[in-house]
């Protein structure tokens, strides 16, 4: 466990030229529909990458391909020198280092909050139960849910569920966190509590890939913004570039709809 933490620390400080995840020529189709058309993408350690775009542009599919929840048709996903897209790679081992947060929270309905957080570390023998509980309490406290440790997962509000989901992912000490529209299922007034947790996480140096419709978050927190359209990365750049002076007409069109 500590090894992983050290690995993150060294990666961020020394080799900033080596990407943590490298996606090469990724293609994915659902039947006739080609959702990802030859996507390539590097994510540097400590980088916060935001993916924006209209519904159906392939943002979520790209994110789900990165930890193999969707199997790519072709292409490579390099992570720690291994190709995740290769057949019969030990994806379970590699997923331990890739945290994922879902739009619909997906807390384990048969467990309470603490057990949601300790299930994976204990099952995968990353640490003892006591250790896992201690770490879970720490992460739950960081997302402001110390009082809900023993609550049933089903009894929480949407915002609370999503914060538990983030704490649950962090309990595995991931090197990278993937967020798949984490605030889209939330009421507008509680979106902020989840975004604040994500801001703290970004400020702490976590590598993050975030699919979102929260333009303000994309502009203020991310190091790089990708605009996806019809299965390709249409445009990417720093938030200032992309929001300030978008080059592509379809980027301008998309942003105009969101920013007026």
């Amino acid at each position, binding site marked *: 466990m500590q090894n992983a933490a050290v690995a993150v620390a060294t990666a961020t400080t020394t080799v900033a030229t080596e990407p943590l995840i490298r996606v090469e020529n990724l293609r994915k189709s659902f039947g006739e529909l080609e959702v990802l058309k030859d996507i390539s993408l590097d994510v540097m350690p400590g980088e916060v990458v935001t993916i924006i775009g209209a519904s159906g542009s392939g943002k979520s599919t790209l994110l789900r391909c990165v*930890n*193999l*929840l969707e*199997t790519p048709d072709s292409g490579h996903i390099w992570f720690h020198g291994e190709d995740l897209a290769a*057949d*019969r*790679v*030990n*994806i*379970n*081992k590699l*997923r*331990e280092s*890739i*945290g*994922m947060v*879902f739009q*619909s929270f*997906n*807390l*384990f*309905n*048969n467990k309470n909050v603490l057990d949601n957080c300790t*299930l*994976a570390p204990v*099952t*995968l023998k990353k640490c003892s139960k006591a250790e896992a509980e201690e770490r879970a309490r720490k992460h739950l406290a960081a997302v402001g849910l110390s009082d809900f440790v023993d609550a049933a997962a089903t009894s929480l509000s949407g915002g609370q569920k999503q914060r538990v*989901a983030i704490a*649950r*992912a962090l309990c*595995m000490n991931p090197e990278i966190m993937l967020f798949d529209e984490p605030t889209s299922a939330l009421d507008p007034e509680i979106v902020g509590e989840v975004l604040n947790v994500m801001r703290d996480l970004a400020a702490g140096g976590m590598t993050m890939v975030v699919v979102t419709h929260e333009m303000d978050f994309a502009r203020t927190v991310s190091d790089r913004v990708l605009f996806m359209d019809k299965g390709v990365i249409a445009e990417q750049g720093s938030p200032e570039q992309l929001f300030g002076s978008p080059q592509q007409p379809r980027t301008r069109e998309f942003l105009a709809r969101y920013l007026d």
Partner: protein
Amino acid sequence: MSDTLGTSSNPPEPAVVHRPLPQDGALAKLAWFVTADHRYVFLFTSVVALVGMGLSMRGRSPMSFLANSYALEVVLYYVLVAWLVVSAAALVNKLLKWNDYAQTSVFKRPQALLAERIGSYVVCAIGLVFFVDRVVMGFDYLVATSIAQDSNPTDFLASTIYMLDKSSSIFVTGIMTTVELALFGTLIAFVLALLLVFLRIQQIDRSDNDFVRFLKTVGAGFAKAYSTVIRGTPMMIQGMIIYFAGFGLLRGSGMTVSQIGSIWSTFVAGLVTISLNSTAYMMEVLRGGIEAVDSGQTEAARSLGLSQWQAMIKVVFPQGVKNSVPALSNELVINIKDSSVLSVIGVFDLMFATTTVAGIYFKQMEIYVVAAVCYLCLTMLATWLLNKLSARLTGSAPSSLPSSN
């Protein structure tokens, strides 16, 4: 309702202050209606009085206790008549004062209301006395005389009682066997179904090696084939095949018929049949419950690094089994009824007992009605118990008797 139609500008206080209706509990609601509600008091008690009068005109059985006190019976009878007269007067009064009956009628004065309530209780008590004297004591006499007969009486009820008395031990044995078959069969089937559904829902995962892939394919195929064959053939035929297959195998190994009978009895064969049969249905119920678990649960578990097996055991399976509890418990009720087909291989269950008794007395209707009532009682009892159980397990319950397979 007439209260609201009243034209008086200053309506008087309502004569009866209604207590609120209890929210739940059928008994509590009934008690409330009897003690607090005043509607229909004349209507209901008039019916009671009429029934009581009718019963009093029926012939007394030798065991009747009112036969010794004829004067008392006459008094009780005329109390009922008097009550009918009062009720008729109240009805006429109501018709005359349709719009302001509640405010002006003498029957709605507080003292009158109290007297009416006491009167209604008295009428009900008298009705009960007549019911016990004529119906209960009459039935008691019928039972006593039927049992004392030397040969089967011709009267339907008397004959039924006579046969039940003479062959009660056969029925008790049959009922016990049916309950054992259904109960143990369902429990064994549940365990087998839990194992089999694991095979059924296996999916090839990217990280599986060739051997695991082969095992998963074979396992899922076996479970699917098992379910198809068992659910596609009648249990009666399965019972035949299993019993005679076992019998033939043991005979082939050189055992005598009596030796076979001691280990491969019809009961054992029946239990094996009902267990194997129910396994297929329960497996499908479990599969439905497991597939109803949101796929996001698996995805979340997998995204944390759990293998498909671990995600299944720790997350999906507990939720799926919980989903299935109501439908699984129905299997017990179904098995109570369906075990009756096992009588064809000679299992001494309730059905076999019934057929045996019918054969002894050459009476069919009486004895099969008794069997139907026995099955109904068993299934209602099982449903009631299972509803309690699944309400405790899941917080919800199946609402009625299940449909058949």
